[in-house]
């Protein structure tokens, strides 16, 4: 190597070559894994490949720990931590109900974010003397990296915990609003930035703890106002944030594996968040600051289709209609999830099929409260996959259906989305249940759904309402059908 070239060439870095190459394998696995997760046919294999990448990263790291003078590494203590983590994480993830999956994702996301913040704290503690003794670019850069990883990590940690609490109904799932919401958040953010700048100038562990405390508070206040229904989007956003937090710890530790993996999650998670909010017909901004989602009542009254008459029915009256149909299409919605009626729905369908009725399920892409919500529930109830039909696929079939049974769905079957340009949900594609010979709607009241808009479907002459909890109604219906 010679004069100029030496300048242009990155020379000797800290990480040994084999570690860098190991992390490269990890990065390759993660990239391939994420790609494969994007298509149903390869998704599961993608998760295995990502898992393999993680294994490689862990082996590389432990080898590094073992081969360097890592004097304080206590294999026993760390082994215990890993064992506990594996047992608790593995067990709870296995044991939890399918319907509780979103909150599990939130929880584990919070764990990762917390780890990132702790790593920041640890690095700050051990580096503190050096920062004070040798101020300058190097110290400043490291402090800033620590601050970034503590900020994103703590924010995502407390935000995820709140999201978990809301979905698990430990905290009110409603869109909690409080006065001066935005100014308060802005103030906290300013305080965090100011404090951070001060920490760079005068590093101190106590100030770092205050810094983290304010950030935790901000995370809580940030997620509290979001309605439970928007939670999937928020969790996806926090997930993307935790990715960035991991990347920030990568900067702190100068570890390429962390930087790449974190950046991958940060970027792909952000794209995914956008796709999710788009699939729900909401803008990301709206989700974050709208506190819509529980608006109900007032919107309904403005649309006010209330004038029509509603025809209510009973399970006895309905049973013969179903039993002697040729094609019945079941349209599940959020109410089925609330009532936990999926197994009973399956039972009704089985009974109908036994009698020679053809049964199909119409799955609207945003039915329920998370993407794929209905698929997951019905799969749990062992409904064969081919019977679950996507919207574009099933819509033409309603015209030849004898009965469409709408089980706790509302917005996704609202014809106003098709007909009424003044409606807030106008333009959203819906399931054309009103084209069936008869439409039966199972819900508890005339209340509105997620979007808070009244549903003209309920007032149509072809529509019969079967009021009551979806599960109770279905069970009653099944026993009546059996008696036919």
């Amino acid at each position, binding site marked *: 190597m010679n004069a100029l070239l030496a300048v242009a060439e990155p020379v000797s870095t800290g990480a040994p070559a084999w570690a860098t190459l190991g992390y490269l394998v990890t990065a390759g696995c993660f990239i391939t894994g994420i790609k494969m997760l994007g298509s149903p046919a390869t998704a599961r294999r993608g998760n295995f490949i990502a898992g393999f990448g993680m294994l490689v990263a862990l082996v*590389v790291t432990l080898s590094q720990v073992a081969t360097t003078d890592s004097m*304080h590494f206590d294999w026993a203590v760390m082994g215990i931590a890993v064992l506990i983590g594996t047992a608790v*994480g593995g067990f709870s993830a296995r044991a939890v109900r399918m319907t509780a999956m979103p909150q599990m*994702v939130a929880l584990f996301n919070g764990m990762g974010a917390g780890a990132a913040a702790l790593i920041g704290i640890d690095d700050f503690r051990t580096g503190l003397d050096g920062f004070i003794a040798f101020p300058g670019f190097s110290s400043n850069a490291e402090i800033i990296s620590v601050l970034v990883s503590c900020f994103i990590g703590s924010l995502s940690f407390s935000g995820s915990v709140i999201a978990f609490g809301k979905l698990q109904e430990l905290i009110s799932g409603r869109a909690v609003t409080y006065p001066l919401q935005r100014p308060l958040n802005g103030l906290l953010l300013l305080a965090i930035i100011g404090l951070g700048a001060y920490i760079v100038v005068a590093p101190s562990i106590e100030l770092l703890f205050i810094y983290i405390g304010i950030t935790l508070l901000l995370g809580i206040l940030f997620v509290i106002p979001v309605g439970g229904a928007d939670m999937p989007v928020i969790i996806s956003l926090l997930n993307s944030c935790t990715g960035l937090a*991991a990347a920030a710890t990568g900067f702190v530790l100068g570890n390429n594996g962390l930087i790449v993996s974190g950046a991958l999650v940060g*970027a792909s998670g952000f794209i995914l968040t956008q796709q999710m909010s788009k699939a729900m017909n909401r803008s990301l901004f709206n989700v974050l600051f709208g506190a819509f989602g529980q608006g109900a009542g007032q919107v309904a009254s403005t649309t006010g289709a209330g004038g029509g008459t509603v025809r209510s029915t009973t399970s006895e009256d309905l049973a013969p209609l179903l039993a002697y149909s040729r094609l019945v299409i079941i349209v599940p919605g959020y109410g089925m999830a609330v009532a936990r009626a999926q197994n009973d729905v399956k039972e009704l369908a089985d*009974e109908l099929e036994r009698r020679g009725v053809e049964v199909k399920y119409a799955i609207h892409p945003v039915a329920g409260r998370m993407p794929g919500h209905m698929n997951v529930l019905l799969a749990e109830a062992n409904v064969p996959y081919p019977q679950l039909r996507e919207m574009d696929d099933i819509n033409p079939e309603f015209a030849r259906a004898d009965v469409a049974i709408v089980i706790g769905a509302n917005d996704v079957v609202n014809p106003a989305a098709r007909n009424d340009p003044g409606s807030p949900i106008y333009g959203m594609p819906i399931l054309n249940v009103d084209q069936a010979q008869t439409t039966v709607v199972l819900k508890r009241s005339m209340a509105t759904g997620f979007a808070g808009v009244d549903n003209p479907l309920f007032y149509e002459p072809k529509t019969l309402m079967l009021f009551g909890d979806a599960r109770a109604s279905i069970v009653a219906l099944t026993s009546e059908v059996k008696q036919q």
Partner: protein
Amino acid sequence: MTAQSLALDAFVFVLAVFIGFELITKVPPTLHTPLMSGTNFIHGIVLVGALSVAGVAGGTAGTVIAFCAVLLGTLNVVGGWVVTDRMLEMFKKRPEPKKEGE
């Protein structure tokens, strides 16, 4: 942390961000939640960071922090992977259940 190493880290970071943006094109809505869960698993890589700082600090405080970081990281990794796998299990083809029984 020199300016040079920082710039190199930034280089790698930005390339990875580009990959992340390109990677996800049009994902069917049913896969949104599993994909979120899968990437949630991937940032469990912080466990690597937790393990590599674990040997640095001595003393009780250091050990406690390291212990917590490793514990949380492991929860993220293991829980994240299992949750994703369970979700994806739903997508595999099941043998058609018997039509006759209930």
